[in-house]
């Protein structure tokens, strides 16, 4: 039952995190098209202000609960790369780390008021693609 509780928290956190990124990449640009870049930037600034309070704790929850479940499938008894499931789980972890590094870098730039590198302008798009890949891997690893 403990595993199920952790799984539910993990799933709800993933829904909140990836769902927001989807909204940011696909839905919010509708505002930019209609009211222009400056208006859109003001709006995003306000959203990011609140987003910075909500999404980093959500990512921490995702990692904490994910780490707990990870140890059920990859540990010293079961081995590390012995089954296709473990290999897919490692790929999933790698994708997660890419997103987490991006989140940490973005927060660092925000806190130190530095301009992020141009590559990071599309970080939410990368995070969305990686997030979708992670969800697919999460289900696929149980049937390979």
């Amino acid at each position, binding site marked *: 039952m403990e595993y*199920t509780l952790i799984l539910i928290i993990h799933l*709800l956190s993933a829904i909140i995190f990836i769902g927001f990124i989807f909204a940011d990449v696909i*839905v*919010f640009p509708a505002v930019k098209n209609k009211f222009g870049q400056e208006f859109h930037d003001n709006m995003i600034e*306000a959203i990011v202000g609140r987003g910075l309070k909500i999404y980093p704790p959500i990512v921490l929850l995702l990692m904490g609960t994910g780490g707990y479940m990870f140890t059920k499938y990859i540990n010293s008894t079961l081995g590390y790369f012995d089954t296709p499931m473990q290999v897919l789980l490692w790929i999933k972890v790698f994708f997660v780390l890419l997103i987490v590094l991006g989140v940490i870098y973005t927060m660092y730039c925000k806190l130190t008021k530095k301009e992020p590198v141009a590559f990071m302008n599309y970080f939410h798009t990368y995070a969305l693609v990686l997030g979708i890949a992670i969800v697919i891997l999460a289900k696929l690893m149980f049937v390979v």
Partner: protein
Amino acid sequence: MSYTLALVIHLLCAIIFIGFVFADVVVLPAMKKVLNDEEHQNVMNAISNRARKIFPISVLILILSGGFMFSKYINSDAGMFNTPLQILLLIKFILAMIIASGIVYSLSRKLVKKPPHPIMKHFHKFVLVTGICIVILAKLMFVV
């Protein structure tokens, strides 16, 4: 494998749908700090217009993929109310149908250009709470 495919599609649609509703209920109200009432209304209209192109389709796919998986657990052979899993799945189904009915009602009022009932102002909050219950039921039903 077709079940896994339906499950992945179902999960991705649930993520973008509930995730957007979460953003709409919890994050987007932050815009009110920087926008006046009229600007806020305009922004919400622009977001709603795009959302109306995406989310009814994602809900339709959710219902279709959910229906496909539903038939694995509830059918003429397995019965309807024989196991706790089936009872929780039926509760999940009823909750999903209440959300779907609300969406159909909202869209139909929009089509006939009439304002919806005032209670529908709180529809997104209701969908968020109901959506979270549905996610919990989706995991709980496999361990009862």
